């Protein structure tokens, strides 16, 4: 019964996009359709998660074609968790965007194409999470990328076109990598079905496996913005409208991380690239956060912290143990919500303070104490201050690291180095965010002129300069949506026990690829 719901997760947003396009001239109807569709997906995803967690993962053969030939949609605990979290985030951000769209109507935010593109983006994200074969995963990626091209260049201003070109070309290259990898994998094994690959790939010579493995990792690494493939992100995300940046930051990189998790745990479960991943993860953390230190613009600063915190997830994947995977899943959930929240709050700051640069914002605490709370909670959370979920996620990862180091003394030093890097990164994140807090919120408005401080000695303005328009009204809907997400991030702490249990059960399935295989092929596979 619930199996019939799985294709709806992709179908609903696509149908919604079509009707939103038809309703282009009726704003209210359009908003109603897209909100209803995403709310529907949230409900379906909750049902799926409940069913799957009760112990019956779902595999659907679309069109009743049997598994290796037809398209398989697979929902296990990891997929269901990702579906639910992304659906919630997409819904909340949509409400925020509606609030913003109602407030300012000018040519830079043509709402009529925003809703269809946004729903298509959602369809792509959901499709990627339930894809059971590599080619369908590729199609999911392409759907979400095409929609993201439109959203990033929304309105076609010079700044956005310039940022969009970088983003689009980098994404195209990564897609070409991915497609070539699929072609070669198909040539080598005769299948693109993930479960079947898991069985067949072990029979290939080691060097062929290594090449295919690296090709996939490069393709997904670009999407997940893993160092050294992360250079494009801080240049392209900040110029988009606030809700778009928030969704991109929260979800798109995580789709890449999800694909890496599947690659490592199911497809190439026998080949071990954990050393490479660990080094890359450590470098991503440190180099990303060093970039964040020099940014005066809060949007660019957050983009760099986004890159940096991808490193934690890569570290968790590299550990490969059940605890490591569980902590990674928890961290992904935490990071999706908290990073989205921060970008939404930044959108509010931009409207309220009329700037995004640390050099031009001041006195916000007095002007709007509520906004200060909305920024302060997720900022502490991202920085990893107890008792927030950022602290819990990092502790989980470090515990898993310590366990792994004890189990494998040969690479223990590397694990400890990366753990140290993670701790330092978390501190620097906290430093960068509290510096912004001190300047923008605590500093009095009257101190702004001629302000000098060692704290601001090394920060650089965004290359485009500030193009923020004057202060506008801040609609209640935007504040409400942000508040909801802040509450969700806090709930991640309150319900950390059950959530970590869920993540642990999801990780249990991941460390043993045969679970995934027997799910798709209940009768065994050759």
């Amino acid at each position: 019964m619930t199996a019939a719901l799985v294709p709806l997760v992709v179908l609903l947003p696509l149908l919604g996009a079509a009707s939103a396009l038809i309703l282009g001239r009726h704003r209210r109807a359009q908003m109603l359709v897209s909100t209803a569709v995403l709310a529907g997906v949230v409900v379906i995803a909750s049902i799926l998660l409940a069913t799957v967690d009760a112990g019956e993962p779902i595999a659907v053969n679309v069109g009743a074609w049997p598994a290796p030939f037809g398209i398989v949609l697979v929902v296990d605990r990891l997929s269901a968790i990702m579906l639910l979290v992304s659906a919630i985030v997409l819904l909340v951000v949509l409400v925020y965007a509606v609030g913003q769209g109602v407030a300012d109507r000018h040519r830079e935010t043509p709402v009529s194409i925003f809703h269809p593109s946004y729903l298509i983006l959602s369809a792509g994200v959901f499709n990627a999470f339930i894809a059971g074969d590599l080619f369908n995963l590729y199609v999911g990626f392409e759907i979400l990328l095409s929609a993201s091209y439109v959203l990033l260049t929304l309105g076609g201003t010079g700044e956005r076109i310039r940022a969009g070109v970088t983003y689009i070309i980098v994404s195209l290259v990564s897609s070409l990598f991915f497609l070539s990898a699929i072609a070669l994998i198909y040539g080598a094994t005769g299948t693109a079905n993930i479960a079947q690959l898991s069985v067949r790939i072990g029979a290939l010579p080691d060097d062929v496996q290594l090449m295919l493995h690296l090709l996939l990792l490069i393709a997904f690494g670009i999407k997940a913005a893993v160092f050294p493939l992360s250079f494009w992100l801080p240049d392209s995300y900040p110029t988009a409208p606030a809700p778009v940046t928030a969704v991109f930051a929260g979800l798109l990189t995580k789709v890449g991380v999800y694909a890496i998790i599947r690659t490592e745990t199911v497809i190439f479960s026998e080949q071990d690239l954990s050393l490479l991943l660990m080094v890359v993860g450590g470098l991503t953390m440190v180099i990303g956060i060093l970039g964040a230190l020099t940014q005066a613009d809060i949007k660019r600063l957050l983009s760099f912290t986004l890159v940096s915190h991808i490193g934690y997830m890569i570290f968790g994947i590299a550990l490969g143990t059940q605890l490591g995977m569980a902590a990674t899943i928890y961290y992904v959930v935490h990071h999706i919500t908290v990073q989205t929240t921060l970008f939404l709050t930044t959108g509010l700051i931009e409207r309220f303070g009329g700037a995004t640069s640390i050099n031009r914002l001041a006195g916000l605490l007095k002007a709007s104490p509520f906004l200060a709370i909305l920024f302060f909670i997720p900022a502490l959370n991202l920085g990893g201050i107890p008792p927030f979920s950022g602290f819990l996620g990092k502790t989980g990862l470090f515990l898993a690291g310590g366990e792994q180091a004890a189990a494998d003394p040969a690479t223990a030093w590397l694990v400890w180095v990366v753990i140290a890097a993670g701790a330092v990164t978390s501190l620097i994140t906290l430093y960068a965010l509290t510096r912004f807090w001190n300047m923008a919120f605590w500093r009095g408005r009257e101190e702004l002129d001629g302000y000098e401080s060692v704290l601001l000695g090394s920060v650089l303005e965004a290359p485009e300069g500030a193009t923020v328009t004057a202060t506008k009204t801040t609609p209640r809907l935007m504040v409400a949506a942000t508040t909801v997400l802040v509450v969700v991030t806090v709930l991640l702490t309150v319900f950390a026990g059950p959530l970590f249990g869920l993540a642990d059960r999801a990780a249990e399935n991941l460390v043993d690829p045969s679970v995934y295989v027997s799910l798709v092929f209940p009768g065994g596979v050759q």
Partner: protein
Amino acid sequence: MTGSLTLVVLMAVMFGAGISIMLERSLTRVLIGFLLVGNAVNVLIYLMSGAPGLAPILGEGVDADEISDPLPQAFVLTAIVINLGITAFMLALIYRSWWLAQLGAKGDLVDDEEEDLHDAEEAADLIRISAADDAAIQELIEASDEEPEEDLEFEAVARDRAEQDPTAHDRTDGEADR
């Protein structure tokens, strides 16, 4: 697995040419490079289906071992469609960036639009002023009803305002007619 050497050579040339063009600065060349590499990947996928065979339609008297592998063909078709869509978008993007480079954001305004914008602002100002005046007059009228002793002073002010007002009204009406 057997494949055609010609296709392998073709694929290699397309990959090489495509990548080198993609490294150019001009966006149009990047797009051409992307198309070449994209088609090279399509040829690669096709190559992976092995030796060509019969059309992949199973029916009476067709041996399943003699047909071509249909799956890569389906992949190639999908990839072609995706490439087509992205090419269309890239062309629009290139045109837009050329437009911005040539004309800047001002190029977006139709010839008389800038004037219209100016007029609209003026009209909005007038409406705002006259509305404020109307409100002030209304207030004065109400005030005069209640407090007759201050009548004279207020009437004078009201007369001043009213003198400005009709002209404002006329001009906004004219604006609306146009």
